[in-house]
């Protein structure tokens, strides 16, 4: 049948098209990383003359020297960023899942209102609260305290929303019921049965949250004035801050060092992205 034949030809062309699109997008994705790596090896003057180049240079040592010669230390900033991001991510994912479980698994009087409120919070732009938030933190003396950055993500409506959508099809209530019959406490059921079942969904969210926490700049900048509490992005922006004499080479090296841990976390959790995380109500 000619129709089938042509569609087969078409499908070969179509497949080539698919791969071409994917490869172009992949190159686009890699481009900033390549530039970052190359520029980390170039001198500030070279970068100022031509910001984009694919030819590495030999200034990585002097860039590192600039980076470490400042009064703050990358290792300390790294540790601070790690504490804040890991804690915030873990708390956010754990409590969002717990909250989603409360909405999915139990019938309680104010459940519907509660869920509607979660949706409403999602709509409040963070800028609305940022003014009030930072003045409040100053008032109660939470400046220079990681808790001011770690605790707020416990109430993350978008994550709750996602976990709820994820849990509805992925969590068989039957298992919960049988565990109850076995006499397991509700909290234990959640920790030992529900959490492991939700792992793929939690992993995806963990990536999203970790990335946004790690890159968070503005609020930490205002809240953390003690240099020993600075985060990686703050350190890099400090390097870029002297507009009259920016150390671009060191900035790129700093950016590269900043992005590396995200890489590690991302690739650790990326198998869930590769495998895919099922989400959405099962409809029949």
């Amino acid at each position, binding site marked *: 049948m000619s129709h089938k034949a042509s569609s087969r030809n078409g499908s070969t062309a179509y497949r080539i098209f698919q791969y071409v699109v994917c490869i172009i997008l992949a190159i686009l994705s890699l481009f900033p990383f390549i530039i970052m790596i190359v520029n980390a090896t170039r001198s500030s003057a070279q970068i100022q003359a031509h910001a984009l180049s694919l030819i590495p240079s030999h200034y990585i040592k002097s860039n590192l020297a600039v980076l470490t010669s400042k009064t703050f230390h990358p290792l300390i900033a790294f540790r601070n960023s790690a504490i804040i991001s890991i804690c915030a991510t873990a708390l956010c994912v754990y409590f969002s899942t717990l909250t989603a479980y409360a909405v999915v698994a139990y019938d309680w009087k104010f459940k519907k209102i509660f869920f509607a409120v979660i949706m409403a919070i999602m709509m409040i732009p963070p800028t609305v609260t940022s003014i009030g938030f930072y003045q409040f933190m100053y008032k109660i003396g939470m400046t220079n305290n990681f*808790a001011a950055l770690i605790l707020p993500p416990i109430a993350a409506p978008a994550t709750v929303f996602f976990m709820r959508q994820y849990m509805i099809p992925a969590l068989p209530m039957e298992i919960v019921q049988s565990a109850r019959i076995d006499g397991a406490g509700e909290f234990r059921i959640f920790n030992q049965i529900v959490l492991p079942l939700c792992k793929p969904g939690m992993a995806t969210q963990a990536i999203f949250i970790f990335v946004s926490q790690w890159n968070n700049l503005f609020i930490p900048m205002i809240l953390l004035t003690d240099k020993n509490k600075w985060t990686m992005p703050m350190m890099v922006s400090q390097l870029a801050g*002297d507009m009259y004499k920016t150390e671009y080479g060191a900035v790129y090296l700093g950016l590269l060092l900043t992005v590396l841990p995200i890489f590690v976390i991302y690739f650790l959790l990326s198998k869930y992205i590769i495998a895919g995380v099922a989400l959405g109500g099962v409809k029949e």
Partner: protein
Amino acid sequence: MKKALSLMAALSLMLTFAACGDSSSQTADTEESKADSSSSEEVSEESSEAKSDGTKEKINVYAFTAEVPNMVQKFIDTHPDFAAKYEMNDTQVPTTNGEYQPALDAALADGGVDMFAAEAAFVLKYTQGEGSKYVAPYEDLGIDISQVETAEIAPYTVEIGTNTDGKLVGLGYQATGGAFIYRRSIAKDVFGTDDPATVQKEIGPGWDKFFEAAEKLKAKGYGIVSGDGDIWHAVENSSDKGWVVDDKLVIDQKRENFLDLSKKLKDNDYHNDTQDWTDDWYADMAGTGKKGILGFFGPAWLINYTMKDNVHDTFGDWAVCEPPVGFFWGGTWVLGCKDSDKKEAVGQIIDWITLNTEEDGLQYMWANGTFAPNEDGTPGTKDAVASGVVMKKSNGEVDILGGQNMFDVFVPANNFANGKNLTPYDEKINSLWRDQVRQYTAGNKDRDAALADFKQAVADELDIEAE
């Protein structure tokens, strides 16, 4: 994966407890301590500091670059008596995206700052504006302000640093009077000589002469400046009035004329149409731009901080001469805080930075390149400084200018500078203005529309109406 997750969970729990250790008490008694929380916490923080660091007291320094903290450190390093009692605790927040001011303001309100640095773009907020309530007059810091006269401090530095009660609260260490910094080889090619006295007469005085020179340069395939931003600083700080007078927007005639100057540059192709602080602007310093560029407008710091690392092959091919109009650009002021309990110590540091004219004072080192000499012991970066006395006994010969003594030009240049046309909102208003000027010169709107849109934007963003 399981391990990674559980490890993460365990680790985070541990860290949370660690991090919350000192915070839980704070959150728990939020209600009661709200009223006096700030004071009580300060006390506890300070006492803990004292314990951990022996007897040394900390001087809290806020700055937007490492420059001032480095100076404070140098003072401590060179004054053992002082070092026995004090050490520095510096906080550096960049101004790039405007983070410095919110952070500084919050810290000032908290009382956690002893001294801080402010840039020309926003210094007035702290010397005369809203931030001035946190600032102590130099007298109260134990500084002998009669030294302003004896050190011959540049008058505009003093004007800007004087509060509304007429008291001196801040001084800069640099002198930022501007010059025209030009390429010797291009001057020779077009004007027949690279002698500053002659070049100065070719390009000025006044903008008419400047454009005559631009025409000559164009005939030989050169541009006179890199972009319109280069002449903006000359226009801005040579004008008679600032942007805001009595809370009304004022467009000084000289600043309004910038529209026409910029348009003329663009329409006649007198420049490379670059924007300052971009790659192409730097390329013109190295002579690798579209066409050769005669020069840049700038103070001494532009040569030593910005151009030095960017001129590459044109190193030594530069010279300075008097600009077609006198102007100044930038500068950093040092201020002490009213609430500081170490006023005398702060005063000693500020005195050393801004008023000391001796060879071991900051200004002499700053001007002669001995503050941070090169590794081989030769003088490092040299800069023009605020004290006339120091300038007279300093040597401004630098290699990038082919051995020319730049102070010959920069010392008189300071006479043009005045502090009368600055306002606390300059940074914001300048960016709105430059934006509209670019729209006009690019041919996207006419002159009247650009002016009207500028007024609208200022009214909308700053609540400052045009007069």
